[in-house]
C-alpha cells in the first residue's frame, strides 16, 4: 500500500517575461489501487502538476510538499523518484535518436531493479506486453519514439508502465490522439496493470470517453492552478455537459 500526498503545492516557471506562477495550492492524495481523474481547461496547469511530480527541472516548487509514503519526493532527483515508484506517461513522449526501445527498456528495468532482469523471462515479458498493446515486435529495434505515430507513442508509454511496475502513475492525456480501438487497448493495459500490481493512477484527461473504460474513484476539476471541485464519476459527466464555465467566472485562465 502506497500513498502519494500533495499538500498546498505552489509551482512557478521561469519565462522570458519573468517568473510565472502556475500551480496555486494543489492538494491531492492518491493511494494504491485508486484512480483519480483530473479534468480541466487548457492551460490550467495539469501537465505542470504531472511534470512537477516527476521532477522536471523547468518547474520551481515555491512552497508545499509532495511525499510518497512519507518520503520527501521534492528532495529526490528525477531518477530517484522513478526508482521510488513514480511514473509519468507523458503528454508528448520524447524521441531519442539512436537508442533502441529494447535497449532503453532493459536499461530502465535494470536501473529500477538494481540488477539486470534474467534475459529469457525479460524477453518474454517484453514481447507479451508489446503484443497486448498491439505493437509489432519490430518496434523493439526502432529508436525510442522516433517516427512513431501519436498513438504508437502513447501505447509505448503504457508498455513501459506495464514493464516497469511503478507504485503510482500519472497519465497525462494518454487518451489524446488515440483511435477508438487504441483507446480500448490502452485502457485495458492500464486496468491490467492496476489489477496485477495495485497501481494508483492519476489520470489527466479532457474526455469522459476513457473514463468509461478506466473507472475513476475520484474526479478533480482543475482550474487556474488548483483543484476547484472534487467528486465521484458523476462529476465527469456533468463537466462533459456543462463545461468549465461555472468555475471560470471571475478567474483568469493561464
Amino acid at each position, binding site marked *: 500500500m502506497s500513498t502519494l500526498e500533495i499538500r498546498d503545492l505552489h509551482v512557478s516557471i521561469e519565462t522570458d517575461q519573468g517568473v510565472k506562477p502556475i500551480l496555486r495550492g494543489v492538494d491531492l492524495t492518491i493511494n494504491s489501487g485508486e484512480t483519480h481523474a483530473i479534468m480541466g481547461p487548457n492551460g490550467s496547469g495539469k501537465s505542470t502538476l504531472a511534470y512537477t511530480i516527476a521532477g522536471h527541472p523547468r518547474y520551481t516548487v515555491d512552497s508545499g510538499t509532495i511525499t510518497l509514503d512519507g518520503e520527501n519526493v521534492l528532495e529526490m532527483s528525477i531518477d530517484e523518484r*522513478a526508482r521510488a515508484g513514480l511514473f509519468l506517461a507523458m503528454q508528448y513522449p520524447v524521441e531519442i535518436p539512436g537508442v533502441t526501445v529494447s535497449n532503453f527498456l532493459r536499461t530502465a528495468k535494470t536501473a529500477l531493479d538494481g540488477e539486470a532482469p534474467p534475459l529469457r523471462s525479460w524477453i518474454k515479458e517484453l514481447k507479451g506486453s508489446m503484443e497486448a498493446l498491439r505493437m509489432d515486435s519490430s518496434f523493439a529495434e526502432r529508436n525510442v519514439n522516433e517516427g512513431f505515430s501519436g498513438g504508437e507513442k502513447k501505447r509505448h508509454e503504457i508498455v513501459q508502465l506495464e514493464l516497469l511496475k511503478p507504485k503510482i502513475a500519472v497519465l497525462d492525456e494518454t487518451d489524446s490522439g488515440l483511435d477508438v480501438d487504441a483507446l480500448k487497448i490502452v485502457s485495458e493495459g492500464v486496468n491490467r496493470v492496476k489489477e496485477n500490481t495495485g497501481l494508483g493512477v492519476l489520470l489527466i484527461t479532457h474526455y469522459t470517453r476513457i473514463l468509461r473504460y478506466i473507472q475513476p474513484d475520484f474526479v478533480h476539476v482543475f482550474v487556474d492552478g488548483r483543484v476547484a471541485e472534487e467528486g465521484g464519476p458523476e462529476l465527469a459527466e456533468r463537466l462533459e455537459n456543462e463545461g468549465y464555465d461555472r468555475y471560470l467566472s471571475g478567474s483568469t485562465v493561464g
Partner: protein
Amino acid sequence: MTSAPSAAPEAAPLQHAHGPGSPVPVQTRSERFASAQHADFPEVTGRELEWRLTPVASIRDLIDGPLDGSPFPAEVSPAAGVTVEWVGRDDARIGSAGLAEERAAANAWSSSERALVVTLTGEEAITVTVDRTAPDSTPRAAHTIITAKPNARGTVIIDHRGPARLTENVEIIAEQGSDLTVVSLQEWDDEAVHLSSHFGRVERDARLKHVVVSLGGAVVRVNPSVALAGEGADGQLLGLYFADAGQHLEQRVYVHHIAPHTVSRVSYKGALNGEGARTVWVGDVLIGREATGTDSYEENRNLVLSDGTRADSIPNLEIETGEIAGAGHASATGRFDDEHLFYLRARGIDEQEARRLVVLGFLLEIVQRIGNEALEARLLALLEDELAAVEVV
C-alpha cells in the same frame, strides 16, 4: 561554454583555376586548383581558406617535409571477388578519380612510390578489411585506389592504428551499377597525425556509401570529395567523430553533382569532450549546370559534453541549375537536450547513464546507417570504450 556554432559561408579568397597565387577569387568549388606536384602549390601560411582551421604548425613535416613513400603497411583479408595489388606510379588508374587540391595532398601524391589497388569484381556482397598499422612515427606518404567494377557489390573497411604521421590520397571509383561502401576508421594512437584526401567518382546508377569514423589521433583530417558523375548516381557520405581533450578532428566534405538525377546525403555527427577538443566540419555541395533533378541534403550535428571545446560547422550549398528536386542543409552544435535526459531519467536511469545513452545514441544514429552488422557491433564497442573514459557532465 566556448563552443562556437557557426554556419557562415567561408569567404576567404581561393586560388584561381588558371594557376596558384592568382588574385582572382574563385566562386565555384569545382574550379579549385589541382595538381600532382607539391611545388605547384604556394607555401602554406595557415591563413588560407583550406588551412585556417587546421593546426598547421604541428603538421609541417607532412605538408613540406620529405616523406617515406614506400608502401604503407597494409594487410588485406583475402576474399573471393576482390583483387589486391601494389602498382607503380605510372599505372593509368592513378589520378582517374581526382587530383590533389592542396600542398600536403600533393606532397603525398608526388612522394608515394606505389599505390595499393583494391578492386571488387563480384556481384555477391563482400566485406574486405584493409588493416593499416603504422610501425613508427616516420612521416609517410600513401596512395590507395579502391574500385568497384560494373555491378560489383561490397564493403571496404580501412582500419588505421599505430603512431602514424601519414599524408595520403585515396581514390574511390564506383563503376556503373556498382554498390560500394568504403569505411575509413581512424583508431590511431594518441600522438598520430593523419591527413587524407579521398576522391570518389560515382558512375551511372552506382551507389557509394562513404563513411569516416575518427576516434584516435592528435590531428586527423579526412577530406572526402565525391563526384556524382553518372546519371542516377547516389552518394551517401556519413561520418562520426569523438574528440577528446587536445584532439583535432577535421573533415571537409565536398559533393559535386555533375550528372542529372543524382542523389546525395551527407550526415556527420560528432561529440566533443575535454579541454582543447576541437572539431571542424565543412560541407560543400555543388549542384552543377547539367545536374537537373538532383536531390541533396547535408547535415552536421555536434554534441558538446564539456567546457573548453570548439566545434566549427560550415555548410556551403552552391546551385547552378534551377531544376532540382531538393537541396537542404542543417548544422547544429549544442549541449544535451534536457528533454532527452528527462525522459530517460523519469524511467529510473541515473544521470550518468542517461547521458551516456544519449551520446551513444546520438552517434549510433550514423552507425545504424552503415548497414553492416559486424562493423556496427565493433563501432558500438569502440564508442562505449570512448565513453567509459569520459565523465559526462
